[in-house]
């Protein structure tokens, strides 16, 4: 999407786009994970086996895909349980649509 000043701003992600982005990032962060076996109700830790290293890898991946810098203070207080929590996070942190 083009803005008045000529820069490119990505439109706000809808749920389907956010889920797709999260699934791709999860597949990149967790070796041997199959995207087709993912669903939003799965637990990140219990079902997908994500540890703190995997979580950081995932955040680096998301930051790159969203092209938005993630701030330490915003991430330090969150605890995510399910894939749905992660999709919610991506919806929150994705760049807003052009005002």
């Amino acid at each position, binding site marked *: 999407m083009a803005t008045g000043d000529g820069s490119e701003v990505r439109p706000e992600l809808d749920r389907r786009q956010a889920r797709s982005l999260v699934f791709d990032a999860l597949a990149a962060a*967790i*070796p*041997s*994970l199959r995207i087709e076996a993912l669903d939003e109700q799965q*637990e*990140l*830790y*219990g*079902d*997908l*086996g*994500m*540890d*703190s*290293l*995997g*979580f*950081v*890898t995932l*955040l*680096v991946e998301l930051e790159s895909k969203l092209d938005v810098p*993630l*701030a*330490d*203070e915003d*991430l*330090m*207080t*969150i*605890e*995510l*349980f399910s894939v749905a*929590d992660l999709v919610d996070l991506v919806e929150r942190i994705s760049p807003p649509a052009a005002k």
Partner: protein
Amino acid sequence: MVTVAAARDPQLPTHWFNILHDRPQYVTSAVPRSRLPEEVQCAGRGVQLQQPFSLARQSLNTTDRYIPIPGEVLDLYAQYRPTPLRRAVRLEERLGANARIYYKYEGANLTGSHKLNSALAQAYYYARAGVQHIVTGTAAGQWGTALAYACQVMNLGCTVFMVRATLRQKPIRGDMMRLFGAVVHESPSDLTDVGQRVLKEDPAAIGTQAVANAEALALAGQDGESRFAVGSGENSVLLHQTVIGQEAITQLALLGEFPDCVIACMGAGSNFGGIALPVLGAAEDSGRLIRLVAVESAACPKLTRGRYRYDLSDALGTTPITKVYSLGSSYVPPPVYAGGLRHHSAGPLASAMYADGSLEAMDIDQLTSFRAGLLFCETEGILPAPESAHAVAGMMDVVSRHPRQEPPLVVLVNISGHGLLDLDAYRRFGAGEIEPVTANETNLSQSLSALEEFNQAIAEPVEAT
């Protein structure tokens, strides 16, 4: 946050050197937790960051060869860096060495070791992320002391679990941490489930770094304000320590020198990586050959006798399960004075380097290390920490094997800390009261077997065709 008035010396590096740029194959990978045995898994648990994101991502950065040191950390480094690089001329004479021996001395700062290089950086990132309190485990107490001071500088609370054997050997370490405002607990303690479990099995348990870290993780998980920090092994910690090697390269260049061989002791890899990694990078840039030698304790010979397997780092298995050279997480090394060398495994980066032949390893027994430490003190006027005395002993071994007909070997050794809090140990050595200590063979055999069983249990399932 902090105001410091110290001029920055031009020799003080402004960036950390990131070996992962040159060797991205060293980026740590871990076993998915879903493959772990049930007793190590925690169903229903969420995922959260223990480290601030900007700190944690340093361990995965393969993009930047040099990572800028935040200005506030640089100002704090300027209080004690650059550290001295000296030639050990009198030691060379005493040894009759066909070598020019240089040493970098990291023991002159307030906390007495290289650990402050990462403690200040970590405390900076935690404070900036809004963390109020840091909890950690420490073996010999050098990391705990450094982190206690760094937390005080950054206005953070600090709690330290220190391995019982070493806290009782040198209680003054605990006093130093308390002086800097930290709360210090002997580990194993009755404050955590894992500590209680260890004490129930053996009320006289001497403790290990793995248990101390597990207790720190457990306490950090009890409230939202606290986080766990670690003083070695992590790639980011090795990164922070690279100021040592970068300074050494600059200081040696002023003398027209570049080392043929770099030697440091090996706990999990932070002081080794700190001095060796920048030199490795510089050697590869200029097409030079370089020998890197890691010196470990004969009581805990993780590289020379360990196996390259996936293993737990802390006793609870809370931290990522990474591939490391390990003696098995159930190995309890005898209580040597070099408590900083008692961790059962090397860190992932140092392990990967050993696996691909980038570094050599040797183990040194306690008596040989004390003998070398005293000789170093007599000739150079510096009493090395028991850990650093292992590096001195290893260096003496390397130098003694260098052929006389060859050009002199240029050696760089890291004296990672002072031994002024180990005077009693040196006194006891001088009085002949210290026995040789080697690995606990029965425990080692059992622990290695358990390590193999663990790896069989977590092996990737083979899909049916």
